[in-house]
Structures are given as structure tokens and as C-alpha cells.
């Protein structure tokens, strides 16, 4: 009886039932920035219902922050920051993987529509006067983020981007550099076919300062006066101990 209902449901709402055809999980859903933190590598893995020619897209998006771009100018012999522009709510980390090196035009148009991919991101800037050459500023933002390893684009199958088995199983390493901001990292997996998102799965990674690192950071920011006094006392003690423990014999 139940089997009959399920079959009926599948026939009536095929999209609904198959829209969750991606099942994904992370080797760990939290990263702690502690004393020994020097970046992290997670494994994103799972199954999907694909056919030949599908595009699988993996996106990891870090917390957003306002970002200033400075432009240097040559002024009387030295390079000085002159003009600047602030982009609002820029993803501090943007890691994207395409399973195919060459994506179909339809799927590329879809990504553009859905604002997926660093070039398709909608970024608002504070100043409008720059509007004609806003693209120059935007491109430099992208370039500097890529240089810092904070925006990453990987294309094609490989052990460092994504591995796929029989259009059913996938595994992809996600490399988090040491300079990441703490916060929530949204992980999305899209299955694209003929310019449509066939299915989609979301999960998240939580990146947090923990232990002593978190305590010191919070101390410095929330109780900065006491922190300053503590820093001075620490230095006074260290200097005093040094003077006496190494007294010349």
C-alpha cells in the first residue's frame, strides 16, 4: 500500500521528489581557529543523480565584509594610495568548483542569472562617481582576492578540485587558508543540466576562534583598557625577571 502511494507521489510530483537527488556531507562541519591553526582542509562528498554532460558546481561562501580598494599613484617619486572605493558585503571567502572545464553556454547563462561565480556576484560600491570605470575597480578586487587565496575557482576533474564516479558519487577537497575570517561558511552543491538547476543541496561549515585565541581576541576587543594594563604588566614582569635571572656573575 505505502509503496503504491510513493509511486503515485513520484509520478505526480517528479520534480519535488527528485529535487533532493544530491546528498552531501562534510568530513567536518566546524573548524576551530586555535593556537595551532594554519588553515584547514575538509572533504565534501556525497551522491547525486547525474547523466553524461551534467555540470556539478560546488560553492563555499564565507562571511561578508566591506572591502576597500586603494589605487596607488606616483606622486613626487613615491607610490601613494590616492583614490579608493568601498565594496559592500564582499564575500571574504569564495571557493567555487566546476566539474567541467568547458561548461555549456546554457549553463553559463544560468550561473550568471543566479549570480553564482565571482564574476557574476552583485557587488554594491559606496561611490557612484567612479561608475564608468567601476569594472576596473571590480576586476582589481577580484584579482587581489584571488592572489590572497581567498577567492578560488577550480575547473575540471582532479584530485585537487572534484572527483566524480559514474555520475553518481563525488568528492571534493575544500581548502581553507589560515587567513580566513571566523563566521558561517555556506556550502552549496548545484547539479546543472541544459540551463536548469536540476537539484541543489546546502550545508554549512562553522569557523570559530576557540580556546586561548578566542579569549585573547575578546579580551583585547571587549575590555581593551584592562588588556592594555595587562600587556604592560606582562612586559614589566618579563623585563624584571630577565634582569635578575641573567645577572652577570
Amino acid at each position, binding site marked *: 500500500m505505502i509503496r503504491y502511494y510513493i509511486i503515485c507521489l513520484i509520478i505526480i510530483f517528479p520534480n519535488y521528489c527528485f529535487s533532493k537527488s544530491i546528498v552531501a556531507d562534510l568530513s567536518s562541519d566546524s573548524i576551530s581557529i586555535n*593556537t595551532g591553526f594554519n588553515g584547514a582542509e575538509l572533504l565534501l562528498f556525497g551522491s547525486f543523480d547525474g547523466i553524461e554532460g551534467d555540470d556539478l558546481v560546488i560553492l563555499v561562501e564565507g562571511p561578508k565584509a566591506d572591502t576597500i580598494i586603494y589605487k596607488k599613484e606616483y606622486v613626487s617619486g613615491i607610490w601613494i594610495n590616492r583614490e579608493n572605493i568601498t565594496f559592500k558585503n564582499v564575500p571574504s571567502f569564495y571557493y567555487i568548483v566546476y566539474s567541467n572545464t568547458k561548461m555549456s553556454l546554457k549553463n553559463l547563462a544560468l550561473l550568471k542569472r543566479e549570480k553564482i561565480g565571482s564574476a557574476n556576484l552583485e557587488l554594491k560600491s559606496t561611490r557612484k562617481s567612479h561608475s564608468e570605470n567601476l569594472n576596473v575597480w571590480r576586476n582589481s578586487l577580484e584579482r587581489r582576492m584571488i592572489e*590572497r587565496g581567498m577567492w578560488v575557482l577550480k575547473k575540471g576533474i582532479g584530485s585537487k578540485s572534484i572527483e566524480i564516479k559514474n555520475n553518481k558519487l563525488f568528492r571534493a577537497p575544500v581548502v581553507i587558508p589560515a587567513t580566513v575570517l571566523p563566521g558561517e561558511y555556506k556550502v552549496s552543491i548545484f547539479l546543472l543540466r541544459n540551463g536548469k538547476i536540476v537539484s541543489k543541496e546546502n550545508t554549512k561549515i562553522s569557523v570559530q576562534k576557540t580556546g586561548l585565541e578566542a579569549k585573547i581576541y575578546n579580551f583585547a576587543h571587549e575590555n581593551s*583598557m584592562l588588556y*592594555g594594563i595587562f600587556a604592560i604588566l606582562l612586559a614589566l614582569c618579563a623585563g624584571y625577571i*630577565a634582569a635578575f635571572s641573567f645577572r652577570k656573575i
Partner: protein
Amino acid sequence: MYIYLPIAEVSMNIFAIVGLGGMVGFLSGLFGVGGGFLMTPLLIFLGIPAAVAVSTEANQIVASSVSGVIAHWRKKNVDFMMGFILLVGGIIGSSFGVWLFAFLKTIGQIELVIRLAYVVFLGLIGFLMAWESTRAILKSRTPGATRGKLHQHNWLHGLPFKIRFRRSKLYISALLPLFLGAFVGVLSAIMGVGGGFIIVPAMIYVLGMPTAVVVGTSLFQIIFVTANVTFLQSITTQTVDIVLAGLLMLGGVIGAQIGSNASSLLRGEQLRGLLALLVLAVCFKLFMDLTLTPTDIYSLEIIR
């Protein structure tokens, strides 16, 4: 072995930091220089944000000055009256300096000003040290050279508010050390240095203090000025990293001891010449960074 620095928010090799502290500590033990003027640019080269490097180095200098002043205190080589007036000036100057620092940080020019200040002052000291050491080397080859004139009173000493400085055997205007302290205080806040490399020659040549009390007195006032910088930077910019400072102190203490023991074994003039070269090399690197066409004229800063 890597350690994540909580305020600088970068991951650093722990041995690189302690080693740097040790190396600069060794040089400061060897030559009796503070070392801040080398440490801060080297920290910046290692990848520590300039603002964190400056504030943290001020914190470390508190420690190295305390351990240094104790030895001078025992020998009664501290002129407390002079030190007090210098530090009053220093606290005014450094408070202004921290305010200026925060202001420059908000308009995005702090890196430039730090680098410019370093190019100017490192260039100056490096040149003077190189000149002095070559002269000393030449002098040691021609014995019987005459000694320079002792200090003379000039018009600056006659400014109002004259005070008697007993340990320094001086009777000069208090305005002079007050302004000197204020000037060095500003530099201390912006460059993350104690300022000994400026205040020591100024005390000898401008104030006319006897050489014996100069180092102790300058160390005494540096403690208070750098403590003031540490405190104010903690409040206004939150850029003092106590983990980084602690590691630098550890390396610095050990290095300074080895350095001060080695100073009796090594030839002074040649080493001073080498230090001058090192200072000039750091200056040159900073200068080139400012003048060479950058690979990318756009730079990025993430605000939080």
C-alpha cells in the same frame, strides 16, 4: 611549528618569531641599541600587519627597557629629574602620536607613513653609524688623534624655566628635554620604537649630558613612553598582540644576554659597521618598495 597570533590574525612559524627576537636581541645586547627600529620593519617583512607590528613592538620595548634600566640603576646612572621631564614630554608626544596613528589608519595612509618614517630615520642612522665606524677604524690606525671639544652652552640652553639637573651636572631650560621627549614620543607611537637612537645622540649633543648617564636615563623614560603607547594603542586600535610580544620578549631576552657577553669578545668598530650595513639594507628595501612601480597598483583592505 606554527602558531596563530590572535590579534595579528596570521599564522606564523614560532621559531621564526623567537629567532627574530633573539637576533635583534643579540644586536641590541652587543651594541646597546634598543632594536625596535630593526624589529618593526622585519616583522612587517614577515607579514605581520604594520599596525600590529608597531603596537606590539612598543609592548616588547617596555620589557627590554626594564631589564636594561635595572643594570644602570644599580650603577646610579639614571638622572631621574631629566628622565621625568623627558617622559612628561614623551607622554604628551606619544599620546598625540597614537591619535595621529589612528587617524592615518582610517584614511588608509598608515603603512605609507610608517614606511616613510623608517626610510628617513634608518637612512639617517645607518649613514651616521657607517660614517662613525669608518672614522673609528681609521682613527685606530692613526694613533694620537685629538679628542673633540666637550659640550658648550648654546642659546637653546638659555630658554626660560631653567632647572638644575644634578646627576647630569647641567643647569638648562626644562623646555629643551620636554620638546625632545615630545618629538621622540610621536616617533615612538608611529614607528614602534623606543627612540633611543634619536634621544641618545640628542642628549649628548643637544642637551650636553655626560655620556655615562645618557643610556640609563633614556631607558628610564622609554619604559614610560612605550607603556603609554601600549596602553593607548590597546584602547584605540586594538593592535597589541600579547602572544607575539611574549614570543619576541622570550627571544629578545636570550639574545640580549648572549649579545652583551659577546660584546667583550668581538671588535666593536667592524661590528658597528656591519650593523650600519644591515640598517641601510632594511632602509633600502623599504625605499625600493615605495619607489619601484608596484606589480599591482590596487591594494585591498577588509574592514570588519
